[in-house]
């Protein structure tokens, strides 16, 4: 490699050429060539022409090779590609993604959570600044998914993509679970897939809960229940949310005896608003499914954010550093499958 003369001038021309084709999400792309894409295919050990997704609205299909081209362009290294494929497969299992999610006015983003030793191998961040930038694997795996939707499905902003505002961090949210500082089993393992695996959902938004001074588990959970129960995010009879806990919050809860399931049950029981509170926002009636102004008939009755039994589909993960008690509420489409997908490589097949 030391003999290769880097050619910045040609590189700049190449970058501009890729923009001119309409392939970019706004940031520079890596040009994909057959030798590079072949390395991606080699790591994945999958047939190049295998179809891994179809968008019925436009009758367009994604093959493993097209996914590899877009992953290469996103800046992934070949060894990231199995994670991209697992994330893609997990998303394709979601009704919200197969339906109108990519075109939606809500402008949702995949939330991609990675478990297993592959986090270390790829340098995938699971600790400080986990939702932010700075790590190639996190940034490019999430970006690859966005490029597949843009380029293969042809869903471009202002055209087939109709996000009203869209999500900050759309196509940029891929995190490792901080298994090392988590008091609980890895997320994917608890949901049935041990080892390297991706769990994903279609996110409507993230919002933080900063609570660093209570040592009481129920006070802490009350803070989350209040945020989860707010009316603004509620458009149908019920809504769904999960929590990506920082290690400090997770450990406090675990020390008080809370498992993931206990957290979900506690939150499901207490998150919501009274009919009166919802009436003030014109959302007290959900007789036809969509929340609309009603007659505020029983002002003090409590309406639960989660549908009965939905706590089983509450996503509870652990990520971030041990520096403060700051966690993230993650809101996603209500019919999340909750099913992780194992990350497989050519070598292990």
């Amino acid at each position, binding site marked *: 490699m030391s003999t290769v003369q880097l050619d910045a001038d040609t590189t700049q021309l*190449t970058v501009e*050429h*890729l923009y001119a*084709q309409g*392939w970019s999400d706004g940031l520079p792309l890596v*040009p*994909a*060539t*057959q*030798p590079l*894409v072949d390395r991606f295919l080699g790591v994945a050990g999958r047939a190049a022409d295998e179809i891994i997704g179809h968008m*019925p*609205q*436009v009758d*367009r*299909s*994604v*093959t493993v090779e*097209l996914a590899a*081209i*877009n992953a290469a*362009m996103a800046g992934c290294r070949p060894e990231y590609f199995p994670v991209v494929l697992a994330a893609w497969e997990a998303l394709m299992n979601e009704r919200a993604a197969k*339906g*109108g*999610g*990519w*075109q*939606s*006015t809500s402008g949702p983003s995949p939330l991609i959570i990675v478990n297993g030793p592959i986090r270390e191998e790829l340098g995938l961040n699971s600790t400080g600044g986990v939702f932010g930038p700075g790590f190639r694997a996190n940034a490019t795996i999430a970006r690859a998914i966005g*490029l597949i939707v843009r*380029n*293969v499905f*042809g869903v471009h902003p*202002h*055209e*087939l*993509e*109709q*996000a009203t505002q869209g999500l900050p961090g759309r196509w940029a949210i891929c995190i490792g679970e901080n298994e090392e500082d988590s008091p609980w089993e890895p997320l994917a393992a608890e949901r049935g897939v041990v080892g390297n695996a991706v769990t994903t959902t279609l996110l409507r938004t993230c919002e933080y809960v900063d609570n660093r001074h209570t040592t009481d588990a129920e006070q802490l959970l009350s803070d989350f229940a209040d945020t989860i129960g707010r009316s603004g995010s509620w458009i149908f009879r019920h809504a769904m949310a999960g929590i990506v806990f920082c290690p400090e919050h997770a450990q406090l809860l675990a020390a008080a005896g809370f498992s993931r399931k206990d957290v979900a049950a506690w939150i499901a029981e207490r998150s919501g608003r009274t009919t009166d509170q919802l009436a003030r926002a014109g959302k007290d009636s959900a007789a*036809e499914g*969509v929340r*609309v102004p009603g007659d505020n008939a029983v002002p003090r009755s409590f309406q639960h954010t989660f549908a009965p039994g939905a706590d089983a589909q509450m996503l509870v993960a652990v990520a971030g550093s041990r520096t403060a008690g700051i966690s993230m509420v993650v809101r996603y489409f209500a019919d999340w499958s909750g099913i992780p997908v194992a990350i497989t490589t050519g070598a292990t097949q």
Partner: protein
Amino acid sequence: MPNAILDPTGRASAAPTSSRGPLAARRGDLAGLRVGLLDNTKHNAMLFLQEVGTLLVARHGAASVSIVETKASFSIPVDEDIVSRYKEACDVVVTGVGDCGSCSAAAVADGINFEHAGLPAAVVITDAFLTTGSMMAEVQGQPDYEWITTEHPMASLTPEEVRDRAERLLPQIVDSLARVAS
């Protein structure tokens, strides 16, 4: 020879989408025709369509509203099963209301699918979704496809306002379903 840059879309070698052929023929009027309504599940869509159906029968001599269905998925265009049920049960279709990202695009595809089955269709979409409608028309090989545009939003209207809206759009809907192309 440097390596070629690969195309990430998979459509570089595909032939440009060719036109799928003519739209359904119109008869000049609606007298005696059976009307089908296809609700795309969006709030107020069903009320709007039913009001249009009633007016088409009461004022324009349509025989009846003979089929009313609600789409299982607002974002997915109608398939052959649905189209053939409508083909069996009615002579013209009114559908909508496109009032969201994916459902507006899908409504345009629905209209085009009905047309190719020989059913004149009037598609109603709000004006916030013009571009996505055009993109879908292009994808469907019918770039000049026309639909009926109404002011956004539709979902927040009261029932009375929805009925007014139906009344106001009626001439355009009748025109779309009956006017013989010149």
